[in-house]
């Protein structure tokens, strides 16, 4: 098995030390950072996403795999920047106002980074105006909103309204979280709904295509 495949395996198993070791081996052997991301890390996370969708993996496996990927990515990000590799697009990501949950949001951030989407993570309990300001400042094409509570999903509607009112007509807003449904996304005028972190990549890329 070549090292890129081994790197994918290390991500799937959540073996962060092995993932970092293989990333270094690949860099030493002259592999380009972008190839390591696209042919090693991303296919690994894609398998994790698939396994999650079919109930073979659960959130602990997802978190552990995401950590392995994150640590390998941390080695590659400065090199990608040096090589002038630009992200496909830029996304502002956060959990909406009043909501303090960040597991799902963090997983989406990880998956997006892996897919070479630039991610500006605003954290949790983010007011609408902060999303708008960050979208303007970073010239973002995407805004990702997360919420876990039925009491906080109305803040998604407020945030979408704030984005539209600010004249950011080309910015696509994608929403997700346990109480969120496609129906709700349609109702509040979101551009996309991701039922889980694994789907969030496809939904994002489709929205900006």
């Amino acid at each position, binding site marked *: 098995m070549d090292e890129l495949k081994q790197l994918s395996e290390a991500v799937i198993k959540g073996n962060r030390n092995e993932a970092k070791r293989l990333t270094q081996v690949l860099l030493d052997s002259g592999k380009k950072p972008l190839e390591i991301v696209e042919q090693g890390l991303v296919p690994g996370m894609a398998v994790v996403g698939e396994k999650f969708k079919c*109930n073979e993996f*659960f*959130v*602990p*496996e997802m*978190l*552990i795999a995401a*950590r392995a990927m994150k640590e390998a990515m941390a080695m590659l990000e400065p090199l990608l920047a040096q090589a002038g590799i630009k992200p496909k697009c830029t996304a502002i990501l956060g959990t909406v*106002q*009043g*909501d*303090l949950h960040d*597991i799902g949001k963090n997983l989406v951030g990880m998956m997006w980074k892996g897919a070479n989407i630039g991610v500006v993570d605003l954290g949790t*309990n983010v007011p609408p105006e902060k999303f708008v300001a960050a979208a303007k400042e970073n010239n973002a094409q995407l805004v990702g909103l997360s919420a876990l509570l*039925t*009491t906080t999903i109305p803040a998604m509607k407020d945030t979408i309204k704030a984005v539209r009112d600010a004249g950011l007509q080309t910015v696509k807003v994608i929403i997700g979280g*346990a*109480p969120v449904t496609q129906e709700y996304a349609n109702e509040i005028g979101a551009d996309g709904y991701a039922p889980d972190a694994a789907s969030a990549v496809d939904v994002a890329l489709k929205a900006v295509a």
Partner: protein
Amino acid sequence: MAIPGLTLIGESINDSVPSTKKLFDANDIAGILELAKTQDQKGAAYIDVNVGRRAPAFMAEMIQRIQGVTAKPLSIDTPDYEIAAAALKVYDRAHAGGKPPVLNSISPLRLQMFDLAKIQPFMPILMVSERNLNGKAMPCMTAEETYQTAKEMLQMARERMGVANDQCILDPGIAPIGSDSEGITKRVLESMRLIHNDPFFQGVHMSVGLSNFTVMLPPKRPDGSPVKGPLESAFLTLAMPLGLDMIIGSVVRKYELLPPDHPAMVCLQDVLKLEGFDAIMRVKDFYS
């Protein structure tokens, strides 16, 4: 399910349960009433009713219809003032053996819900896992903060509703063990200990949404043995001596008090000692 000293609020009638949401969406009221009857027969002391973001009038109708098939008291489950008000207006206390309903829940950001007691008395579940910081929700980051929030909320319930401790329920906010890299479970248990040891809280009830503890975990281990029931039972085993006497949970789940050497107890004790991802890995080891 029968642990002496533990009161079960049956969780099934909740719009965030996918199979129940389908019933609501299809307006299958008979299906909802069946859930009420089943939970009643299987030992729920209260029946929780959560209709999601539907109209207050619909909530009122559901309360009346459900009371038509069960004499158990109900738990009115909504963060919405108007939905709660509509439910309280029609709740028939005499039909429930004179028992007041539970109101699930009042958080530091929804204090106006105390005023609902003017419609009719209820037992509030007081959410004490978050604080109100200048109008914004902030999670309690330490057991001490949760304890202080509990003190303020209980004091407010006494003053604004004129109720005694034994008519109040504190919810210290349990979190999923499968993603607990920040020691939340440890903090929840410690906050319960602080509350339990303070005479100020004497007679108060404590409750958690126990199914929340094991969401995002698989139902079974590779050998076919259950994952969720034992882990939830392990939590109960540790929390009941600290004053936990109510849960919002499932009538079909097997809850029991476990011996210290039970694998789920060993797992939970390990998780309480571990930090960060090591805690998550330990949970994964339990079910893998």
